[in-house]
């Protein structure tokens, strides 16, 4: 007879160990999955996790690492703050899109002017776009007690339609011979978000992600607001008695995650993606949920988790070209990782006891 016995406090050792264990378990289960697809399992896992860092073409892949990790970390940091408080923003994908559209729209309005002030302005409006889109579920939750999970998620589909409408209509490149998609913002000097240090892939999004990690760390460990967020998540009643205003917390958590997601979208738009097009969004907003959990909702953990998931993206692309692995297998792989992680979380919250419970 196996029983679970609740620990008085979550084990810190297990909390640190479980992500590594989960990654390991995912490699095994993923290997089995690839074997079932008729691909060499060991080679597939090596292509995904090892080659991008230490393989023959690592010099190319290493630069991609930061490019992919930046949006993931940026979004996941914002999400983790809300998740800590029990406020579930799962519509980061939509906030990412709207941030890019609003920021990009402001940038295009200045075309073809030049000026140092344009890029900061564009960045600001990117954040505002994401923030505003997240304010919809936030205000509905505060005013009408509407479930923020469903509203934020449904707004993703609305944002995707707006994206389609923008790239086919309002923001379409007038010199684009009728092709859908906006002007290229990374080719327009005033809004370009270039690689800052050659060969590293580090653009302004990477800088922003690093700053976000530091600020989130200070907020969660040193600031009273971070304490209130943690209390609200773990003991909502205690938080209310101690005078935490739950409405303000909802507005803050959704606002900050929306703004960061908007920033991520904007840096992607002005850098790697270049233009607003129908397939601009690539699911970073959803993958960031995995990143947030894999990083234990802790800023430093999220930084590491973001790099790891970025690695699976790059490795997945490599495996696609080298081994003919379907691109969707990486999505399944990432989902599997989250399963294992949640399953192993049990170890940090509970002790496993063998034998029957003694009667007290």
């Amino acid at each position, binding site marked *: 007879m196996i*029983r*679970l*016995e*609740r620990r008085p406090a979550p084990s810190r050792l297990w909390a640190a160990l479980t992500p590594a264990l989960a990654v390991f378990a995912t490699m095994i289960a993923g290997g089995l999955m690839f074997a079932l*697809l008729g691909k060499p399992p060991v080679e597939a896992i090596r292509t995904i996790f090892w080659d991008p860092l230490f393989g023959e073409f690592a010099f190319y892949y290493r630069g991609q690492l930061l490019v992919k990790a930046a949006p993931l970390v940026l979004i996941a940091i914002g999400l983790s703050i809300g*998740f800590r408080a029990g406020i*579930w923003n*799962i519509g980061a994908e939509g906030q990412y899109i709207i941030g890019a559209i609003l920021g990009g729209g402001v940038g295009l309005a200045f075309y073809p002017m030049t000026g140092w002030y344009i890029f900061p302005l564009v960045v600001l409006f990117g954040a505002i776009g994401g923030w505003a889109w997240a304010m919809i579920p936030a205000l*509905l939750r505060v*005013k*009408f*007690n*509407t*479930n923020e*999970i*469903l*509203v934020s*998620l*449904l*707004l*993703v*589909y*609305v944002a995707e*339609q*707006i994206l*389609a*409408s923008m790239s*086919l*209509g309002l923001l379409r490149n007038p010199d684009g011979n009728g092709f859908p998609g906006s002007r290229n913002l990374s080719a327009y000097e005033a809004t370009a978000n270039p690689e800052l240090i050659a060969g590293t892939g580090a653009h302004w999004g990477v800088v922003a992600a690093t700053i976000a990690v530091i600020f989130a760390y200070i907020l969660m460990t040193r600031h009273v607001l971070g304490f209130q967020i943690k209390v609200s998540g773990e003991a909502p009643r205690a938080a209310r008695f101690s005078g935490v205003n739950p409405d303000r917390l909802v507005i803050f958590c959704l606002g900050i995650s929306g703004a960061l997601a908007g920033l991520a979208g904007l840096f992607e738009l002005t850098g790697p993606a270049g233009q607003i097009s129908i397939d601009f969004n690539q699911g970073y907003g*959803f*993958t960031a*949920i*995995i990143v947030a*959990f894999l990083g234990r909702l802790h800023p430093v953990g999220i930084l590491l988790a973001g790099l790891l998931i970025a690695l699976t993206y790059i490795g997945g692309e490599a495996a696609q070209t080298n081994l003919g692995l*379907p691109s*969707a*297998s*990486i*999505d*399944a*792989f*990432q*989902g*599997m990782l*989250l*399963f294992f992680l*949640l*399953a192993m*979380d*049990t170890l940090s*919250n*509970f002790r496993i006891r063998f034998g029957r*419970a003694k009667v007290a």
Partner: protein
Amino acid sequence: MDLSSINPVLLVASIMVASTPVLLAALGELVVEKSGVLNLGVEGMMITGAICGFAIAVNTGSPFLGFVAAAVGGAILSLIFGILTQSLLSNQVATGLALTLFGLGFSALVGQSYVGIRPPATARLDIPVLSDLPVVGGMFFNHDIMVYVSLALVIAVWAVLKFTRVGLILRAVGENHDAAHALGYKVVRVRLCAIMFGGACAGLGGAYLSLIRVPQWTEGMTAGAGWIALAIVVFGSWRAPRVLLGAYLFGGVTVLQLNLQAAGLAIPVEYLSMSPYLITIAVLVVMSASKGRVRAAAPACLGRIFHAST
């Protein structure tokens, strides 16, 4: 714009078809939530059902086996959720999201070799006399069997929850799991059964999309239907007949906007396409704004972790 191109008989008939996937998924989720479990993985289970059903139907040539496979696939996927949340006591919101993310990836992976194939057609159920009635026959009695299955399921879920002992136990577990446990009911077992029923229903709903409504396999084809099903359960305040109403309302909006697109209304296509989602949000807001109603109707233990020793 030419509104006369919209045929009312076809309109009603297509509303029924458009509503069925969401109705099936929402009914399953209704039972799950009545047992006190919030499974946010409906979208993932639906799309898994869609590809399982599609693959089996194409390979065997039998839509019936396809639907069976879809139900089994959805149930197996939901069992992962069940074990994680009920045995390993993981957070239900996070696990549900994991289920959706995994389901979307997994289905895309399996579905790669099925893109662009047409599934075998599902036979229409011709009911003698009724199907031949003018107007009404075309509207209500000229559908495939799954439409009637979904309607029968509404009655079954309603009756079981309201009149039977099983329904009473299920509701007891959902309202107060500690009391139910003290009375000797197996809380975890009841919830696992409910979760698997929910998974099977979501799978059926997904297969209805890929085998009948569309009928084709495309990646991410559920396009938020699972999330709308979750919203409809809230809209229906956890009652089967109201869930039926909600699903048909949603189906109505979907079909209407498609018809308006076809009729060439002067609103851009994208804005019409987003209308079902916006209306779902609006309905959610209206429902939750009426103070206390949703909270009173929701099962008291919804989303709470049950651990026998505490």
